[in-house]
């Protein structure tokens, strides 16, 4: 069921049908909304990179929405870094809390203003539906922002939570999921300067049908927001591939991002925090908080919470508009400072997907906690790597003369083809070497070889002689019937040739295979 859903969503992605990448959009938004704070961080930390992407958005936004009734100052203000928001993950600090609350207050006021202006305009002129829509959209976005900020603020009260947003509060995650509001709006509201100290929590979050409301809002503004996103990312045409589902079962061979040469600034850089990366689940039940890897599973789970979740609409995969445009090119940064995948690195190479981030972080910066149960030596930090290894562990080792081992023959042959003078090592090569160097001492080993190699009874399988005992050949007496069998002494002299040249022990195998060995070593 799960995989079926995943696959269908994938195919729809490829076909870019009307259903196109709703799930992926969800995850995408989930990622963006979820990593809201880090997003902010990146915006402020690398203004040169993120602002070019964002400022056009504000241009559009302000011209269409704010100009009629609002001041220019807001637009100017957006570029001013807000110190209080710069560091949202620091330990609880009353100052920060205060600024957060004041921000919230201001935000709510803004929303109120917009709604007011909408209602007044509605009474005056009936036309301008597009304007109304745009305003609705803005309201939606602002509300989302408020909710997230609120929860974030509340979460930071808990001392153990360093990053309250994702790991501590599943509701937010899911909220952002279902809201599906574009990232740009969230960030834009976050950047508003805060001045008011009154903290008012909007009661809208408490209404039970909030989600439905949001959904409806969302659906009406979807097209608009996508258009805005398009403006936001004018140079993202080539990199507009849909971001795969986070919990897709594809195992990334490398950490992604290699080989694609996106010019810096042509993509948005997101940096997830360590906790987010290591969080096992990404979809959380709003009601009971249970986590899921897949949205589809969450929807199935939601049925248990009441009949309203059993409607086909609620169960159906949230569909995406056919006219939707691809998401902005987003790349990820590893939170580990000093890593090449960290955006601070001089030769920063971004990671392509969330999955890449997860695998990269686990492989590079985490303990290898999964040990292969067969060889007990190989350790892995990504369980998929362990599973891949276990498929091959214990198989024949392909050995090169240089001592390198390979799990596959073609890899060994590729290696041999590459390096001059390297040859594949046959399984018995080491024994041969010892036999040649320390002849007499290793006579035991050589005797074994007589049994196992030289007289390996080539036809034994076809002639099915039962239980052909190889050890028989080890025993030198085994050859005795050939040499000293008295029956033939009179009949013929067939053994005599052996004695004719018996001054040389080579000629007479039964006189001891070890003596042959010694001679061989001497010669």
């Amino acid at each position, binding site marked *: 069921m799960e995989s079926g859903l995943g696959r269908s969503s994938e195919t729809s992605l490829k076909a870019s049908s009307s259903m196109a990448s709703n799930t992926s959009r969800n995850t995408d938004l989930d990622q963006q909304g979820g990593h809201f704070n880090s997003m902010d961080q990146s915006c402020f930390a690398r203004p040169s990179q993120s602002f070019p992407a964002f400022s056009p958005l504000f241009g559009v936004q302000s011209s269409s929405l704010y100009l009629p009734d609002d001041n220019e100052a807001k637009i100017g203000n957006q570029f001013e870094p807000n110190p209080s928001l710069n560091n949202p993950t620091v330990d609880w600090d009353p100052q920060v809390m205060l600024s957060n609350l004041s921000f919230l207050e201001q935000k709510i006021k803004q929303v109120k203003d917009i709604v007011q202006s909408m209602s007044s305009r509605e009474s005056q002129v009936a036309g301008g539906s597009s304007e109304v829509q745009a305003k609705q959209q803005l309201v939606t976005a602002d509300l989302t922002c408020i909710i997230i900020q609120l929860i974030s603020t509340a979460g930071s009260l808990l001392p153990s939570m360093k990053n309250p947003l994702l790991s501590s509060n599943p509701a937010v995650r899911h909220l952002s999921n279902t809201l599906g509001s574009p990232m740009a709006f969230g960030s834009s509201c976050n950047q508003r300067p805060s001045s008011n100290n009154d903290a008012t929590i909007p009661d809208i979050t408490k209404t039970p049908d909030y989600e439905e409301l949001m959904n409806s809002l969302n659906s009406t503004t979807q097209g608009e927001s996508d258009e805005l996103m398009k403006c936001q990312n004018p140079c993202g045409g080539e990199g507009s591939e849909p971001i795969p589902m986070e919990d897709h079962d594809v195992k990334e061979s490398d950490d992604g991002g290699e080989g694609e040469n996106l010019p810096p600034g042509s993509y948005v850089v997101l940096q997830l925090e360590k906790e987010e990366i290591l969080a096992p689940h990404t979809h959380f039940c709003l009601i009971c908080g249970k986590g899921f890897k897949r949205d589809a599973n969450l929807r199935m789970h939601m049925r248990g919470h009441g009949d309203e979740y059993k409607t086909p609409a609620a169960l159906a995969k949230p569909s995406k508009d056919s006219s939707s445009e691809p998401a902005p090119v987003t790349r990820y940064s590893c939170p580990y400072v000093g890593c090449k995948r960290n955006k601070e690195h001089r030769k920063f190479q971004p990671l392509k997907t969330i999955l890449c981030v997860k695998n990269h972080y686990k492989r590079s910066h985490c303990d290898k906690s999964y040990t292969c149960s067969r060889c007990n030596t190989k350790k892995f930090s990504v369980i998929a790597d362990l599973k891949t290894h276990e498929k091959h562990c214990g198989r024949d080792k392909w050995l090169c003369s240089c001592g390198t081992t390979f799990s596959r023959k073609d890899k060994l042959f590729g290696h*041999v*083809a590459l390096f001059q003078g390297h040859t594949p090592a046959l399984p018995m090569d080491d024994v041969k070497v010892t036999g040649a160097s320390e002849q007499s001492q290793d006579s035991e080993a050589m005797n074994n070889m007589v049994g196992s190699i030289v007289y*390996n*009874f080539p*036809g034994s399988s076809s002639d099915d002689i039962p239980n052909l005992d190889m050890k*028989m050949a080890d025993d030198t007496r085994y050859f005795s019937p050939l040499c000293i069998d008295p029956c033939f002494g009179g009949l*013929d002299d067939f053994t005599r040739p052996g004695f004719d*040249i018996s001054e040389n022990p080579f000629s007479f195998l039964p006189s001891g295979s070890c003596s042959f060995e010694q001679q061989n070593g001497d*010669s």
Partner: protein
Amino acid sequence: MSEEVQRYGGGGGGVGALSLDLLGQVLDRVREPRDRKACRLVSRAFARAEAAHRRALRVLRREPLPRLLRTFPALERLDLSACASLDDASLAAALAGADLAGIRRVCLARANGVGWRGLDALVAACPKLEAVDLSHCVGAGDREVAAVAAATGLRELSLEKCLGVTDMGLAKVVVGCPKLEKLSLKWCREISDIGIDLLSKKCPELRSLDISYLKVGNESLRSISSLEKLEELAMVCCSCIDDDGLELLSKGSNSLQSVDVSRSDHVTSQGLASLIDGHNFLQKLNAADCLHEMGQRFLTNLAKLKETLTVLRLDGLEVSASVLQAIGEGCNNLVEISLSKCNGVTDEGISSLVARCSHLRVIDLTCCHLLTDNALDSIAENCKMVECLRLESCSSISEKGLEQIAICCPNLKEIDLTDCRVNDAALQHLAKCSELLILKLGLCSSVSDKGLAFISSNCGKLIELDLYRCTSVTNDALAALANGCKKIKMLNLCYCNKITDSGLGHLGSLEELTNLELRCLVRITGIGISSVAIGCKNLIELDLKRCYSIDDAGLWALARYALNLRQLTISYCQVTGLGLCHLLSSLRCLQDVKMVHLSWVSIEGFEMALRAACGRLKKLKMLSGLKSVLSPELLQLLQAFGCRIRWVNKPLVYKD
């Protein structure tokens, strides 16, 4: 010439005055090994000269090997393929005492007893080794091949039917011997695309490659196409190779001269056409038993090879007269064409083919049932140079057609008339071909002593004669043959049941005879066998199956005289354990014995006889009932020495 030299050498003193160098020059001009032997037997000077000059040596027994290697220090070619009971120990011992610095080529074909230690010693002793033949050493595997790989100067290697060789062994060879020019991997079924890929990367000098019967696919051909000097490629019965592979092959350098895709049943004429596109200097193309129809594109492309193509084999293909005409017009320089078992070959087709191909020397028309004398007439008229004509089962031809051939084609060396119902008159005409070497008359029951008398009187060079089931042939024919055709090496008299001991008595004068098949000659006895064994010193193979009158006396004679006998069939003969024991213990070269339904031999007889010959036997055919009663120890011993036993299970039926 030989007698002259012999007489001269026999004088002694005169020859001894000549320098070794001159004597060596003389010996070089003595072609026949027998004559050379006579020279060195009668004159010490010649013996010394030969010792100093001899380049090639073929050893038949293991015992004299050390002495021989010491005697001939200038040896370059050493053939141990027929050396009975050669094993690691004896080979290493022989090599230890000799100076083999000059040895370049060693043949160890079918030397099942030689393993990696013997090969190690061989390679170490022969620093200039250039060619090694390990074909049919079925027990040879990666270790043996790895031992050979130590010969870094190796240029030629045959691993045909070395069943144990895998990619690993091949990798050893290609890394160890980068100068390899000729390699046969035929029947090495364990080798895969990976190995072939490595081969083509590591051995750029390769000129000839045989990958017949391998399970490799098109990827191998992709790798092979990178071999820039490859001239000869055989891929018989490679069923994983198809047209796409040939397409890949055609992308390589335009160097191929000979391609064999026979019995590769996924190859079609399309693939061959694209192959010709890429390689337009092809000289030999063997597409026997792989094509189902003749594509137009293939025909057009064949015409592109007009200048170069000399050998074309299309066995088993449906060909019409127009196709043959197109081939004839397109490929004027054909020297050899094979249309064996081709449906639709008619007189008309043959005449339009040969009309333009006047250089044809070998024409194989086996089982082209529609052909009549007209076809032979047109061949005779156009192809004066023809040397080999295979007409088996062309039952509509008669003496008239053969008369034309005999008149017009004086170079005829080989003709196969098996099952053609020719008569004595035809043989009378054929007798005009005095160059005839091979004559096959199997199943021609109307051939009689009279016809063979014509042959005997004129075809003195004959080396092979097949009279299988020529039931009219009697002792008189053998008398005539023994008189006229002294050079005969191979003679098949199976089921010519009028032949008796006196006939075999005549055969005794054929000193060159090596292969003699006397199957189901119920009248011959030990006396006849004795005269053959005494007279035919070179006898290597003898088939006495169902010669019901042969008893121990025959075996005693063989044991006493047929010292070179290597292959013997005595199934259904009335021999006893004693005779068998004596035979097997005496004949040092005997390697292959078929002894099914020797109902007079006891289990103990078999046991003792086999023990006596244990180290020498390489192939045995026996009743499967014996498997359980012979001691397992003996069977293990046989296998340990590289002997393969074929157990058969068939009822005892006496046929006449």
